[in-house]
C-alpha cells in the first residue's frame, strides 16, 4: 500500500526502492574476494572438492549448495551450506 501512495505522490519512483540491499550484499562478497585473491575458477574447484567429500557420506542436494567466503571477526571464513537429502547407509563405508 505504501507503494501505491508513493506512486501517486512521488512520480512512481518506488520501483527502484531498496537497491541499497543489493549494494550491501555485493560489497560484502566483493571485499572478501578482494582480500583473498582467489579466482572464480579456484572457488569453483574448492566448492567441487568440498562437495565431493560430503557426497561420499551423504546424498547432497546440489541445486541448493552455497559455498562462500565471508568476513569473520578475525579474518575470513569459508561458509558453506550443503543441504542433504539423506545420509547414505553404512555400506558406503566399505567403498
Amino acid at each position, binding site marked *: *500500500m*505504501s507503494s501505491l*501512495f*508513493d506512486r501517486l*505522490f512521488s512520480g512512481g*519512483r*518506488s520501483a*527502484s*526502492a*531498496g*537497491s*541499497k*540491499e543489493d*549494494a*550491501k550484499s*555485493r*560489497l*560484502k562478497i*566483493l*571485499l572478501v574476494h*578482494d*582480500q583473498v585473491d582467489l579466482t572464480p575458477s579456484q572457488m569453483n574447484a574448492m566448492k567441487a572438492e568440498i562437495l565431493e567429500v560430503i557426497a561420499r557420506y551423504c546424498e547432497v542436494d546440489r541445486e541448493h549448495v552455497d559455498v562462500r567466503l565471508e568476513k569473520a571477526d578475525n579474518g575470513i571464513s569459508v561458509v558453506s551450506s550443503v543441504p542433504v537429502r539423506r545420509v547414505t547407509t553404512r555400506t558406503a563405508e566399505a567403498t
Partner: protein
Amino acid sequence: MSECIVVTSGKGGVGKTTTTANLGVALALLGKKVVVVDADIGLRNLDVILGLENRIVYDLVHVIEGECRLRQALIKDKRVDTLFLLPAAQTRDKNAVSPEAMRTLVAQLKADFDYVIIDCPAGIEQGFKNAIAGADRAIIVVTPEVSAIRDADRIIGLVEAAELPEPQLIVNRFRAKMVQRGDMMNKDDILEILAIPLIGMVPDHEDVIVSANRGMPAVFDEKSVVGEAYRRIARRVTGEQDVPFVALEEPDTFWSVMKRWIGLAPSKEVAS
C-alpha cells in the same frame, strides 16, 4: 602538540580535496595554525578549491629539491590568518617526491603548525605512498557507493599496513531522500562494512559546486549545511567529544508528515 593528518580515499572524485580545504579552513577558524599540503603532484587542485591559484610562486617539489626555502613556498590565506597552503607542482610527476623527502618536509612543517593536512592523490601507487609517509593518522573519505566503499576498504588495509593508527571515516555526498527510500546505504550500513570510527557525515549539496566555482570553501559560509558539517568534523579532529552530527533528514513537507501520520512512511530514524 602538532599532528599530520592525511586525507585519502583510493577512489578519485569522492571529495578528498574539498574535504582537505574545508577541514583546513575550519581548523584555522578554530584558531589552530594549519597548513594544507597538496600531495597530488602533476594534478594539483587544492589551490583552486581554496581560491589561491594566482598566488603560487614556488611549490612542494621546489622545496624538496632545495630550489627555495619552505617559507617561500607557503601561501598565506588572507581570509584566515592561521591558514597556509603548500601547493603541489603542476609540471612534474609523483616520482619527483619520495616517502623520505615527505617525512622530512612534514617534520619541518610540524615544527611550525598545529595541523598539517595532506591532500592525497587518488590511487594506491607512489603518490599515495608519498602522501601517507609523514602522516600521524588518516581520514578516509567515502561516498555511499559500492565502488568508493570497495576502494576505501583497500585503503584501510594499506593504512594499517603502514602502521598508522586506525583511520577515521567521512561519509560524503549523503542524500537523505535516497536513504529514506532505501536506495542509498545509510551510516550504519557503511560502518558495518568498513568497521572504522565515523568522524563526519557531509550531505550532498549544491554549496560544494558553488564554493568550488568561487574558490571559497563552504566552511566560510556560516549558513551552509556543508560548511556546518565540516565545522563539526574539525571540532572532532581537535578531540572534542560528543559533537552531534548535523541533521541530515530532509525538511518535513506536508506529504511526508501526512504519510508518517497515517503510517505509510517509515519514521525518521534513517538519516543521521
